[in-house]
């Protein structure tokens, strides 16, 4: 028995997914909307970025399906109670990663703890030695000898699995494309492999294969070893960094979701209506953007803490508290970042307003609301889209900095910012504990790189000015 839990950010994420899906379905049928997206997918870096982003998003979505387990009850008739610990589908999927915790630090693929401990000998006396890990390499009889071979064997298995899966995927893609284009299988295969297909299937296939390799490697190795080591209290770093993905995505996407309505509405209104409305809106965003952002964020986070301290009954679990803080962080980041988009939109609407077809529409007495929704809004959407995609990577990076300043996500939450922040201290240890930093770096870097490549592709596709080049 489980009880689903919908956190605030979960709800918003699902809302976002719903909106995106609706838009995708809508755009499918409109060629002028489809074309630029096709352009994105057809560019080589773009297609690669899409594959990577999809992987991240799937992990993030899985991690957003929260639930609470029912507690066992002795007598059947009694009311069921649920554990106050909230789990997610991702936790269920990676199972042992969450629960297999060691005592303290251990290096990646280690079979022994990183620090020496005093061990009481059964016959009395003490020795200082590196104790065996409880889980990492548990199955090995003689880790010093067997570990390398075992890791190689497992990697070999992963490679074989990848090859099988990769070939299967290639087969499927080719079959599907051949079927769609009414071509012979071999012709299609040649087209794909020689990179003559419009959509760069070869690149997509290679990206998918690499992704598959990573997944199989993780599946084979992560259950038996701590592939990224363990942290100070023995938690698996790989698990932490997987959990951090959701935090990064939430900050990157919800912030924009929250700020978009304001920015679009205010920006277009200011540009279209002009006069005193324009003055008021301009005044608002100039004021907001002239306050140093960190100060605004610090104040809001403090304010939230006051509220939570005064209403402890509203936040039952640690996760809920962390979640509400994450949400507020997104909101306040949205408030500090909507001004830029608002200014752009205002400028664009000012220009559009003077366009002949809008002048004509006005002359015909078309209602303002209709002009805005029919003529202006569709014509500024590319700006909105480009800004959103561009902002995403900046926001993911900002989380780390804010956490360093002390106004970031809740310290109990898994996030790259928190990982980097504690890794700072680990870098000062002798010998250096580098794996947390490395894990956070790799996962964060990959996401931001993919987002940047994606945003490049989106800009190329949507910005008519750039497409001339």
């Amino acid at each position, binding site marked *: 028995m489980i009880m689903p839990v919908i956190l605030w950010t979960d709800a918003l994420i699902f809302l976002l997914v719903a909106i995106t899906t609706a838009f995708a379905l809508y755009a499918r049928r409109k060629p002028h909307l489809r074309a630029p997206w096709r352009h994105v997918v057809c560019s080589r870096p773009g297609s690669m970025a899409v594959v990577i982003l999809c992987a991240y998003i799937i992990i993030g979505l899985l991690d957003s399906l929260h639930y609470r387990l029912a*507690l066992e*009850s002795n007598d059947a008739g*009694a*009311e069921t*109670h*649920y*554990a*106050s*610990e909230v789990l997610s589908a991702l936790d269920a999927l990676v199972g042992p990663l969450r629960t297999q*915790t060691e*005592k*303290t630090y251990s290096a990646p693929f280690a079979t022994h703890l990183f*620090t020496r*401990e*005093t061990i*009481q000998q059964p016959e*009395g006396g003490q020795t200082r030695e590196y104790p065996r890990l409880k889980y990492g390499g548990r199955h090995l009889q003689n880790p010093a000898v067997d570990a390398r071979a075992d890791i190689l064997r497992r990697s070999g298995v992963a490679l074989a699995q990848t090859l099988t899966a990769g070939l299967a995927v290639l087969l499927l893609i080719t079959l599907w494309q051949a079927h769609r284009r009414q071509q012979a299988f071999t012709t299609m295969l040649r087209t794909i492999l020689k990179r003559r297909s419009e959509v760069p299937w070869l690149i997509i296939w290679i990206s998918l294969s690499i992704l598959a390799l990573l997944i199989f490697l993780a599946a084979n190795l992560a259950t038996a070893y701590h592939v990224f080591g363990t*942290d*100070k*209290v023995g*938690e698996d770093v790989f698990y932490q960094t997987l959990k951090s993905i959701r935090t990064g995505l939430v900050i990157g996407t919800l912030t924009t979701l929250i700020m978009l309505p304001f920015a679009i509405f205010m920006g277009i209104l200011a540009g279209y209506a002009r006069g005193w409305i324009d003055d008021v809106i301009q005044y608002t965003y100039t004021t907001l953007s002239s306050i140093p952002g960190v100060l605004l964020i610090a104040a809001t986070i*403090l304010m939230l*803490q*006051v509220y*939570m*301290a005064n209403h*402890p009954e509203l936040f*039952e*679990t*640690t996760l809920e*508290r962390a979640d509400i803080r994450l949400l507020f962080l997104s909101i306040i980041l949205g408030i500090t970042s909507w001004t830029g988009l608002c200014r752009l939109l205002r400028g664009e609407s000012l220009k559009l307003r003077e366009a002949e077809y809008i002048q004509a529409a006005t002359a015909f007495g078309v209602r303002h609301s209709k002009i805005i929704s029919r003529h202006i809004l569709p014509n500024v959407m590319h700006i909105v889209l480009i800004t959103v995609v561009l902002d995403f990577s900046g926001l993911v990076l900002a989380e780390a900095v804010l956490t360093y300043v*002390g106004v970031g996500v*809740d*310290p*109990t939450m898994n996030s790259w910012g*928190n990982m980097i*922040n*504690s890794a*700072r*201290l680990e*870098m*000062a*240890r*002798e*010998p250096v504990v580098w794996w947390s930093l490395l894990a956070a770096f790799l996962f964060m870097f990959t996401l931001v790189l993919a987002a940047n490549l994606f945003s490049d592709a989106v800009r190329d596709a949507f910005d008519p000015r750039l497409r001339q080049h």
Partner: protein
Amino acid sequence: MLRRPDGTPGNQAAYGCAVLLALQAVLLAACSDEPWNRPYPAQDAHRNIMYSSFQERPNHLDPVQSYSSNEVRFTGQIYEPPLQYHYLERPYALVPLTATAVPQPVYLDADGERLPDDTPPENVSFSVYDIHIQPGIHYQPHPAFAQDADGRPIYQDLDEKSLGDIYALGDFEHTGSRELVAGDYVYQIKRLAHPRLHSPIFGLMSDYIAGLGDYANTLKVVSTELTGPNGDRGFLDLREYPLEGATVIDRYTYRIKLRGTYPQLRYWLAMPFFAPVPWEADRFYSRPGMQERNITLDWYPVGTGPYMLTINNPNRQMVLVRNPNFHGETYPDEGEPGDADAGLLDDAGKALPFIERVIYSLEKEDIPYWNKFLQGYYDTSGITSDSFDQAISVGSAGEVSLTEAMLEQGIELKTAASTSIYYTGFNMLDPVIGGYNEQARKLRQAISIAIDTEEYISIFLNGRGIPAQNPIPPGIFGFREGEAGINPYIYDLTVNGPRRKSLDYARQLLAEAGYPEGRDINTGKPLVLNFDTTATGPDDKARLNWLHKQFTKLSIQLVIRGTDYNRFQEKMLKGTAQIFQWGWNADYPDPENFLFLLHGEQAKVEYNGENAANYRNAEYDRLFSRMKNMPNGPQRQQVINRMMAILQHDAPWTWGFHPKQFSLTHSWYYNAKPNLMANNALKYQRIDPEQRAALQAEWNRPVRWPLGVLFLLLLAVIIPAWVSYRRRQRQPAYRDKH
């Protein structure tokens, strides 16, 4: 050195030699024997300067207000209270500093008649301490004492205009000094009640020092009258207002009169609160314009101690320089057994202080500090107990262990059981976790067993801590070694020493407390407990995860309620917290200073005291009052043992641990011995600058080849680019691709 102090050349040969040497020095520097990464001016490399750091600037250097350890580490070197702790001896012993002897109280009855020394405390109305100070002690040079040729003070009547360009104390041209007199001590005691200052110990002291409370009221009235119409606050001359509890007997003697008895006073007499403050300084600093320019006693202390603060730039550095007027003191020639072997008595009888100058640089982050220490640019490293100020957090340096490489560098590790305690407390007012019935006790005991302090110490302190059995840390009277001191509710005694009781036992206790399997026996609801904390540091995530794990062992759900420092304080004051962590750092080596943390009259919610758990037990309180006034001895130990038994049964804290103070020193650093009571240890320290300079140079040879590689790489980029550019330029331009 060949150069004369005035800089004029000696004879020709020496002059030539000097030029040659200088040239050589330049050449050597160019050949870079001198490290590139030295964070200090090169010319200081061989000077007798100690390098240290501060993470956050001290808030108060006024001896009336400075209390936290990061403040006392400065004021302790500058101000000299009448007493001090012996640097080497253990247990901590008080010895005279400026006084001629440790004062003994004389007991009086209500009529002022002398009572015998063995009078029971409840019959004593007043105790009187006469303190004689040594003649011939002089203050550091300070503009407040500056006099012109006629003996008139120069700077005592400054106004805002004549201050001109003066923004720091060092900008004053003239300085002077004066002999220390008993009146200066009395002046400072009166300052405890000063209406414009808030001494943290005023509340405590007004309970004891005769007339101090009324004195504060008198001064408040006077101060309001003195305040000018535009907010100018004139000089409040405390000499004009007598205080019953502190009086001058003669030039070198003063008297402190207490209501009842308070044997702990002598410990306070070793803290800067009871250091002398000359009235001239007070008057000097209260001139108009001084406050605006931030020239106050809080920033520029004036004392008789071995060092004086010459630069106080909170943005960058603080500098202590040897006080030229220091009265002189010698290194102790006796210590604990073993000190002689450790080389701690090698300097016996030599004149203090050894170090010429101490430079404290601003260093916010732990990593740079640590790395610079390893490079030899800081002389010592260790955690201060600053962390107490932020409720609880243990510094990252606590993770350090001596590796082969560090041993090779000659770094030494000094540890001492510190006189502090970090504990996890239960709010006794809470309906779930608090209360004095057997069920609540069992719940607390079960949790105390489940929180594996030994593991905490091993993970977060690298083994540098001692699990606490009760509030009293080792080194303080009342602490019991071995099995007698073990808390029987948490530990089993086995042949291999004490063992934490099993989790099964804890679960059984939990069941008896009404929560079998961590669920309420009546409703079946899971038991959810709240942990309130100020989580800010980078280490907190791991710490909170760990704590969560401990409660999960008992199937108890722990909700971590992180908040900011102020909100945490507010919760503690209102008593809405449930479980919290806190710490206490000894003011003085007396069990009273720890046992009062659980005294009913110190309850946080009711009296805004230091008893954060709001624990109250009538029997404990009664015993506390008795214990407080007893001299150390078997009788006192017996009373303390009874108090311990009560506490361990009630389990208002999980007792936590006593961190071991540790410090790392380089091989050129001598006479380091952790002394957690003495705040003036700097004067005993010695460094060998030549040895240091040699080792620094050896450790910091720059690795230069990457620069070469970088240069080659640049060439590899630039040359093809240039070639291609030339080629294009020669091509006809119209072949534009666009």
